[in-house]
């Protein structure tokens, strides 16, 4: 039992080593870029740190991280099964759009209104991701290609329906095209522990529950075991009686349903309607966050918080005369070095394991040799 704990600790260390290495590498590369452009890197990092720790920045980061965390979870579910769901972006936008339309049409008490909106969103997200899953199992279409194309199709569908006279209205004052505003009962609660810092979006609670659910399903249920098995070896899973095709469709459906939650903080907590200004591209951030977090529920949370922090400070860097693109460089380098660092750490881990096994075998052989000598 003691031995297991020891191995676990080592695995944990190795697990943490990769993302930490990646973040450090990102800061080194960014420093070089800043130096090359004739700017002082440490001052930039100091600006980021001091601004990012302000109380209103904390609230902003938590709010941003809520959305990113959900996006990271949606991507991670696919990753755990070796499915690359690039389509989270289209899934959450389409889902949020239809949820906003349905929410704007009915006016129920909050206890019904909010679940209705969330369920519509999850269903639409699941359906949209499910198309890619079905295409994969019936026609062998790579889910990467299918989801990328579904992203574009989602953009086109929303553009078609988000027009005055279709499912949206034109605000002639602001020139913005938007769905009907959700009734007040459809607005999610907010927490305001410090008025100067602004409200924390209540959807953070849902994100935390989703994280716990993700952890529970993957590591505590048979379904989660099957899912991880398929991810590690499809043929082995098939041989042990797992219906791989069904697993693919199911996990795409779940991934899409979680993607349906991604747009909810923006819809229920912020804008209360879907408009031409609805944030786009969060699905791709989710991929980076899931990669950084190694598909681990806590890791994804850390990745999401880091991304929120970088977003927050990018605005302030621009304000202080740095190019805000520098944060794009940091984020890009993190993603690149995460991939490299994982490989480096994995090889190191494997090498270490091999050495240890070799030593153990040698020791066993020696012991056996001694025993034989004694016997002789």
């Amino acid at each position, binding site marked *: 039992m003691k031995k297991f704990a020891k191995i676990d600790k080592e695995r944990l260390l190795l697990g943490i080593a990769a993302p930490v290495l990646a973040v450090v590498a990102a800061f080194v590369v960014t420093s070089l870029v800043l130096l090359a452009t004739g700017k002082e890197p440490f001052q930039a990092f100091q600006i980021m740190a001091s601004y990012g720790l302000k109380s209103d920045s904390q609230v902003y980061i938590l709010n941003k991280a809520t959305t990113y965390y959900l996006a990271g979870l949606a991507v991670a579910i696919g990753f755990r099964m070796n499915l690359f769901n690039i389509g989270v972006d289209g899934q959450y936008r389409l889902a949020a759009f239809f949820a906003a339309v349905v929410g704007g049409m009915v006016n129920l008490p909050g206890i019904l209104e909010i679940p209705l909106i969330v369920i519509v969103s999850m269903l639409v997200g699941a359906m949209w991701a499910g198309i890619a899953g079905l295409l994969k199992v019936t026609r062998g279409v790579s889910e990467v290609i299918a989801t990328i194309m579904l992203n574009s199709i989602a953009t086109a569908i929303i553009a078609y329906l*988000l027009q005055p006279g279709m499912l949206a209205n034109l605000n002639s004052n*602001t020139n913005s095209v938007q769905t009907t505003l959700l009734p007040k009962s459809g607005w999610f609660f907010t927490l305001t*522990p410090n008025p100067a810092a602004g409200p924390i979006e209540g959807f953070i609670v849902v994100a935390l529950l989703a994280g716990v659910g993700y952890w529970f399903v993957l590591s505590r249920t048979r379904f989660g075991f099957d899912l991880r098995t398929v991810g590690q070896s499809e043929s082995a899973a098939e041989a042990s009686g797992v219906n791989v095709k069904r697993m693919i469709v199911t996990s795409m459906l779940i991934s899409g349903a979680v993607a349906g939650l991604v747009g909810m903080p*923006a819809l229920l907590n912020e804008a209360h309607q879907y408009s*031409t200004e609805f944030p786009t591209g969060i699905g791709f951030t989710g991929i980076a966050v899931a990669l950084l977090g190694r598909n681990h529920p806590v890791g994804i*949370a850390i990745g999401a918080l880091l991304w929120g922090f970088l977003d927050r400070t990018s605005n302030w860097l621009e304000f202080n005369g740095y190019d805000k693109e520098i944060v794009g460089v940091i984020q890009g380098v993190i993603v690149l070095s995460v991939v490299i660092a994982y490989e480096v750490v994995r090889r190191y881990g494997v090498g270490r394991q091999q050495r240890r096994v070799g030593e153990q075998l040698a020791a066993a052989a020696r012991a056996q040799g001694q025993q034989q000598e004694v016997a002789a």
Partner: protein
Amino acid sequence: MRRVTTLAAAGIAAALAITATACGASSTQSGSSSTSSSSASGGLKIGIAYDVGGRGDHSFNDSAGRGLDKAIKDFGGTAKELTALNTDTESDREQRLSDLATAGYNPVVAVGFAYANAVQAEAAKFPNTTFGIVDSVVPGKNVDSMTFATPDSSYLAGVAAALKSKTGHIGFIGGVDNELIKGFQAGFQQGVKATKPGDVVSAQYLSTGSDLSGFSSPDEGKAAAEGMLSRGIDVIYSAAGSSGTGSIEAVHDHPGAWAIGVDSDQYQEPGLAQYKSSILTSAVKNVDVSVYDLIKSVKNGKPLTGNNTYGLADGGVSLATSGGFINDIEPQLQAVEQKIINGQIKVSSQP
């Protein structure tokens, strides 16, 4: 796995601890000291928040930037320029404006209708700062809403196109099919039809909805224009940001065909100098004038507020004449312009 749960619990606890206390000063609190110091120095501090693309889009944002540059040249002072991202949420836009207002920038100019709600929210929080918003009408005592009668200038462009087309087949290329660009199409079509009822206008948009790539894809603009030219269209009006440069390039390869530019007087654009012999005219939208006006009014202590529409009458929108290609039809154009100003011609903003 128990370790994971404890870790998760610790992480959540830490997050909650941060939120519960929301410790430390907020950025607005610490910024207030700089507000007073800056107003003491007396220099004009202009904050500007650009739409996606920012400076260098050869179009909308650049036009606002020109107004800012001119104002700084004339009145002195400093400027802080921030730029939007596609992933922006409402809170990002609000933060951008609030950062500027907190640091004592006045006026704070928001370029593009995406900022409408953010301006409304922040204008209420900073009653002593003047906010400007382009292409939107926002209520508020300290808000200058700058809107442009672009359908009117597009109508004139349509008249010019109809008079210059030999084939009677005219093209319109829009960047993104949003309401603003549809207004360009509506005015243009109406202008063509009113001049030559038998002429045909073909409209094409480069991208739809939230996909804003149509404003920044010269290759797609070029492909669309080539398609139109091959179908016998000989005058093409592009309201498509920098994609329009591709369209102008394609038109230049077809002798006898004309391109109509947008937003800036594209005949004068240095980047387009080699194609200028094909640029018939441009439907100019003088965002720079409105931005300059606002800064000037703040400088003079009488900030502009309310809805300020820039139209044909005050030169806020106009049809460019550089190149002299429309000199021969100038009397007709002027007559139509007068009728629009008088209200005799009602220009629609819906195609």
